């Protein structure tokens, strides 16, 4: 009986194997987040007990750590800073990367391919090489200790990445539409505004998402350029301001991390394939 298996049984066995192999991956991937959540809602005495099972509540869950963040720290200001920075970075990125991506993809400029590659390579110049000279630039502009410094600096990586991404995107828009529009009397500008941009909204939306998520991945620039307590974005403010000396308030630290980490991770998750497509040059579909 054990030797004869129906296709259905085979399929179930195969699934069990795959799930079994994937389980450690899933646990490793989400455990730190689970630990964040449980820590953020635990009462203080419940956090520091090693004698009892730490992965579940032994006292009633509490919102204390969350209220503490908004009442006694600059967390609210950091959230607003993060949002404002992202918004401005997205605007700057769209205004520069959309035209550049379109130009490189569609207007057959001599050397456009090399130029596209050059733009992408600038994305790979690491922040650690640029942050010291940029600190001088920031000082020159009078923006030290101000979140506007990050609005100036973040486009150094969002523009190259989004230009490259949009270049790939504009190549997929059918050429005939623009030509038809031009034959109908639109100039190049008219064809871009009336025909190309409306069909490119998904591409531009992706660019906005990346302007946001890539900004959230930064730590170095925020750490180096903004030291005023109320001017920081969340990913920089939480580790530098909420840790005082050697005292860690893990409950509120994890609450602070969770409120920003989870939404960003979810958003990024939906667009991850686009990101991979972007950096691998649209080879994988």
């Amino acid at each position, binding site marked *: 009986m054990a030797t004869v298996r129906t296709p259905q049984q085979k399929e179930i066995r*195969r*699934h069990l194997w*795959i799930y079994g*192999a*994937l389980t450690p*991956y899933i646990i490793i991937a989400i455990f*730190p*987040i689970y*630990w964040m959540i449980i820590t953020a809602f635990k009462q203080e005495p419940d956090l520091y007990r*090693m004698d009892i099972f730490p992965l579940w509540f032994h006292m009633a869950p509490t919102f204390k750590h969350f209220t503490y963040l908004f009442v006694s720290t600059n967390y609210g200001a950091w959230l607003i800073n993060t949002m404002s920075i992202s918004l401005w970075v997205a605007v700057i990125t769209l*205004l520069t*990367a959309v*035209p550049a991506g379109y*130009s490189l993809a569609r*207007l057959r*400029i*001599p*050397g*456009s*391919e*090399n*130029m596209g590659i*050059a*733009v992408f*390579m*600038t994305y*790979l*110049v690491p922040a*650690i*090489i*640029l942050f*010291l*000279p940029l600190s*001088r630039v920031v000082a020159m502009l009078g923006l030290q200790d101000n979140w506007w410094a990050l609005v*100036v*600096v973040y*486009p*150094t990586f969002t523009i*190259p990445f989004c230009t490259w991404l949009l270049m*790939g995107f504009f*190549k997929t828009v059918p050429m005939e539409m623009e030509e038809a529009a031009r034959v109908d009397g639109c*100039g*190049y500008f008219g064809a871009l505004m009336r025909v190309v941009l409306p069909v490119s909204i998904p591409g531009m939306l992706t660019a906005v998402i990346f302007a946001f998520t890539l900004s959230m991945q930064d*730590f*170095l620039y925020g*750490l180096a350029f903004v030291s005023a307590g109320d001017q920081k974005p969340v*990913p920089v403010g*939480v580790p530098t301001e909420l840790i005082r000396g050697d005292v*860690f308030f*893990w409950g509120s*630290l994890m609450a602070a*991390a969770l409120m920003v*980490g989870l939404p960003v991770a979810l958003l990024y*998750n939906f667009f*991850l394939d686009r990101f991979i*497509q972007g*950096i*691998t*040059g649209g*080879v994988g579909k």
Partner: protein
Amino acid sequence: MTASPSGGGSDATSAWAAAASVAVRPRGWLRSETSRRLSFGYLLLAPAVLYVLLLVGAPFLFSLYLALSDANVGDPVASFAGLENFRAALESDVFYIALRNSILFTLVAAVLKGILGTLLAFLLLQPFWGKKIVRGLVVIPFTLPIAISVLSWKWMYDSQFSVINWFLSRIGVIGSYGSPDWPIWLGQPYLALAACIIVNVWRTYPFSAIVLLAGFTSVPNEVLDAARVDGTNFFQRFRYVVVPMIAPILLIGFLFDTVFTLSDLSIVYLLTQGGPANATKILPVLAYQVGIQAGALGRGAAISLFLFPLLLPLMILLLRNLKRRDY
């Protein structure tokens, strides 16, 4: 300005040359389709190119200048110091420790995420029920903002209330708190470096897997079928069809990750600040501590520029690769 690190500058000069030549051409050419298209193209390109030249190209050159000067945070007037900063770096012990740690960190992490990522990619390549959800869950480490997830790890590595130690103690690998084999993750030299590498691997193996997966799915089934008809076995197909076809994608993914790993400061800075006793000191952390915390801009710039020769061969490889691909 034209000597941007990426070579984008020469294209920009030809852009200006083309724009200038438009002015002297006869009016007929000026009105021509081509000239209108090109001038519109350069106009659209200009803002992005200028932004990148001003805030990536110029700072890069400026960092070379800083590295050759005695620039200091307190003193805005810097004078030329020659190779003094590089000499000072090469003569300090902590520089060699940081260089060694950076290379060790990157290599060990690359091997681990290569293995973990490949296994995961093969698993995700199988058709199974609930794949979308599983994929969404396993890529979470890569999508969390890095500073945020490092905080969670710092709490898991806590010297007394580490949940990892609780688990290890429960399954009997180590004793209870206070016993000599209780690991203080961030306080013991080798463990601290391992702890930092673990966070990097945890964060980026999903990326390796997804890049590999993108590669695998880009190989058309017809090609594989054709190879199968030709009588090849699985390993031959893998070695002679799949690997050459996905090599460009893999290389880009590998390079991207290496640049990130070599130049990332946040994991080590937030976990250990380079301690204990320089055991986790890597070049980015050293550059930050010297350049910003100690205010020696020139010294810091020289240290961060030492990363460049490590990255350059990879960049050249990538450049050759990108040039060969077709869109």
